[in-house]
């Protein structure tokens, strides 16, 4: 399908994760009032990086919560035209069950974004070539915040972008290729852009619901017209929903479990077994090789291999368990109807995430990987990030020299998970509920995602299909916990201009 994307009106995060800009900080902010919110936006507008050609040494993106849009002066009824999930927010109690944000992961324990923490208007994403440059931007920003009356709710610091995430597994290998972006080369399977940016055809060939405004609400014609032809002004076009979650990763517990579960009957360690079990749980080896292609050992030559399905080569999950992390977040051709067919891939395409996260925390040197096995890499494979992590190699490696924990809300090690979506319910929430945290996924009984899934208090189960019978790992602890989160909207550039020009009105937090 020939789609022309209006790249100069889309924020750059849609097109790229800024992997070459090694340093990044995500700042959650709240404005004192509408004037402050508008002033900040006016200051930001010339800085916001678009999805067009990019070669600069820094990048700025800005996204707003529903409350932040109201603060800017968008009438509540207009905010109500955004998706119900966005308006209701990630910490909504009913949503917490869908997302698995319960018990320790519950919003009331969150460092930010929960009912106990201050409201958030928006998030600023700042990227720079190195920590020194980032530090300069940070100071500039702090000055502006002080001058304008903007309050920092939390600074989410990130680790220098790397190929591995904190558990030590190569990450960011499998991203959907978006139709209309230059990365989508001919012959490869692409996902329609409307899955990730509003105002373009989605995987059903339709326009995803978006905030359309009567033309009278845009008298200066700042917004693009509704491509659906309704005559309305499209506040959503070229914008995306942005999911942000701080996921704390218990690297030590992960590797301890892998070691204990594979200890020999006499208690001694089996040197290769912990990594092999961890790879079964992830579905890829630490180096990235997919288990369907490298069932027995890591294969460096397959480190970025993304050209495979599951149904024809491994229908029972003997190589890559049905419940392995990467087989859950992206089941490829294993889904009904007709696994192994294009119809199956079509269903899969309706549940893809465009991931843009980064890891955080102190160096995990020495804790990643069991001692002396030479790997030390671990992790969240395809959920993860895009580019992340310390994941130094193995045996007591040295620190990797990234920034430390942030002042607010960081602490520990983990992932600032970010993903773009056109439809939060069908994409992010579906994947989270129906695939990751579903104990009955693909015929299971009590198996949530072995790496990132929630567990009930007595622990969970991981089933590795095998001959002659499955191997069942019990009492799996929870390795990943939600520490914060929010739903944001990453507006198009025209929409940002519209928001900047909203008439002054009553403050509406």
């Amino acid at each position, binding site marked *: 399908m020939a789609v022309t994307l209006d790249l100069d009106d889309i924020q750059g995060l849609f097109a790229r994760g800024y992997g070459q800009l090694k340093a990044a900080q995500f700042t959650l902010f709240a404005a004192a009032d509408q004037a402050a919110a508008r002033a900040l936006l006016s200051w930001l507008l010339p800085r916001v990086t678009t999805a067009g050609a990019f070669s600069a040494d820094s990048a700025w993106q800005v996204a707003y919560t529903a409350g932040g849009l109201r603060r800017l002066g968008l009438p509540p009824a207009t905010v*109500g035209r955004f998706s*119900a999930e966005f*308006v*209701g927010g990630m910490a909504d109690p*009913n*949503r917490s*069950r*869908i997302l698995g944000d319960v018990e320790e992961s519950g919003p009331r324990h969150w460092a930010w974004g929960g009912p106990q923490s201050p409201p958030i208007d928006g998030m600023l994403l700042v990227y720079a070539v190195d920590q020194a440059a980032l530090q300069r931007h940070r100071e500039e920003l702090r000055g502006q915040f002080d001058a304008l009356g903007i309050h920092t709710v939390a600074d989410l610091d990130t680790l220098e972008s790397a190929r591995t995430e904190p558990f030590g597994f190569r990450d960011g290998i499998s991203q959907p290729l978006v139709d209309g972006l230059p990365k989508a080369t001919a012959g490869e399977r692409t996902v329609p852009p409307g899955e990730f940016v509003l105002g373009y055809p*989605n995987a*059903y060939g*339709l326009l*995803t*619901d978006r905030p359309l405004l009567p033309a009278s609400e845009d008298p200066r014609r700042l917004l693009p017209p509704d491509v659906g032809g309704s005559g309305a002004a499209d506040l959503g076009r070229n914008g995306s929903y942005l999911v942000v979650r701080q996921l704390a990763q218990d690297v030590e517990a992960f590797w301890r479990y892998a070691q204990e579960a594979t200890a020999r*009957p006499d208690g001694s360690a089996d040197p290769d077994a912990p990594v092999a079990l961890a790879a079964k749980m992830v579905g890829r080896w630490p180096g990235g090789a997919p288990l369907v292609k490298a069932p027995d050992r890591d294969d460096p030559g397959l480190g970025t291999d993304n050209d495979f399905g599951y149904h024809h080569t491994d229908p*029972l999950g003997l190589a890559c368990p049905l419940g392995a992390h990467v087989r859950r977040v992206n089941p490829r051709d294993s889904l*009904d*109807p007709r696994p192994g067919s294009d119809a199956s891939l*079509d*269903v899969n395409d*309706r549940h893809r995430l465009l991931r843009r996260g980064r890891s955080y925390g102190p160096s995990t040197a020495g804790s990643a990987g069991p001692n002396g096995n030479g790997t030390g890499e671990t992790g969240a494979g395809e959920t993860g990030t895009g580019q992340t992590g310390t994941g130094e190699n193995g045996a007591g490696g040295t620190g990797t020299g990234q920034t430390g924990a942030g002042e607010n809300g960081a602490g520990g090690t983990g992932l600032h998970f970010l993903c773009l979506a056109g439809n939060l*319910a*069908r994409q992010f*929430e*579906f994947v989270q*509920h*129906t695939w990751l945290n*579903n*104990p*009955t996924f693909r*015929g299971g*009984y009590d198996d949530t995602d072995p790496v990132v899934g929630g567990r009930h208090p007595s622990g969970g189960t991981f089933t590795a*299909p*095998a*001959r*002659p*019978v*499955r191997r*069942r790992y*019990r009492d799996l602890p929870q390795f990943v916990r939600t520490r914060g989160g929010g739903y944001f909207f990453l507006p198009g550039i025209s929409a940002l201009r519209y928001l900047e020009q909203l008439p002054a009105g009553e403050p509406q937090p």
Partner: protein
Amino acid sequence: MPHQLGVTIRATVAPERVAALREWLSETARKGMAETPFDFAHLRGLHFAKFFVLDEAADLEGEPIPASLVFMTEVDAPLRRHLAELVDVAGEGIDQAFGHCVGYPAPGTRRRARIRWLRRHMVSSGASYVNTVGRGLEQIRQEARLREALQDYLDQPDHGWSASMPPARVRSDIQAYVAGRADLGWAMKPPARPSLLWRVREALHMVAVPVAIVLLLPLLLVVVPIGAVLLRIAERRDGPVTERPAPEHLRELASYEDFGAQNPFAVAGSLKPGGLRRTTFRAVLFLTDYAVRHLYNHASLAGITTIHFARWVPLDGWRRMAFASNYDGSVEAYNDDFIDKVWWGLNATFSNGLGYPRTRWLFFGGARYEQEFKYSLRRHQVPVPAWYTAYPTLTAHNIENNAQIRAGLRGNMSPAEVEHWLSLL
């Protein structure tokens, strides 16, 4: 094993009691219905039960339809036993619930009067889907226990099995283990089938309907094309559905969802006006009834494997209809299954209702307008505050898998079949 029944009991709520009933229902929901005052866990053969309130409404002519309480159960036959147990075992809760309704026998009335009242307030389903016809509650529970016992057995470290040994040896070890356990002896025998009388009746129905259709063919060949053209003309007047569900309605629905492996579902709405729509709807329900009894009676409703029970119930003299089910997973996943797998079935049924996305030739379009379809279902969805499930952690897939595990304990198998069977464990 018995066959399964979908029982619907509906009664008009006394107008001044509607608010009190709602409050009482959500209170009940918090406590659950397994124990007192309903004691549903002690009703024989009860798989699921739900209560919901249909608001006061007006039909298309403006005739008022009073608020009503709907009680649905999915239960093993016989009906007579079930109705008696509703009064004898669940009586305290049933009295409290229907005590909000017009004409429910006064406290202290004899049980037979109350049973009669319930029976008089039963509403027939137009069609009723059972995931696997004939699989009763007792069987589901037994087979779940069998699987758990086998899981513990497999976890024992000292079997001496290896990947290279013939899988048949592993199977015979498992068979010997089950045979040796007195409490699992039943598992070596096939489950009982529904009564002979019932099976004969179903077989007759299976043959009679196609025969009748063939006999009527000359007439149908004239009527159906004319009807199709008229329907298409009517369809062209339908516009897109743009109305979104109200946030507070969504919140209420969500507050009862996603606590376990399964969810209850109920939608209700008005049929479109006119005889053409009503006739189409009746014909579709007639065919649906045939399909779920004879084609989709084992583990899949036209490709959807996550539904335990479902029913289509015409209401108020075919002016309105309700659809209710018990399904696995989230409502989002359920809707996606509808859109991706059985859009045609949804369209043929629900496009006769008001507020459904426009269709073409009855089967096309409709649910494929993803967002319109989801809004339409959510808007017509009725909160189910009080819901009971006898096996909250088991999906339909789990139950079918358990049955296959048991079935594989008997009979001869090829090595490939043994390998497949072992993969179910």
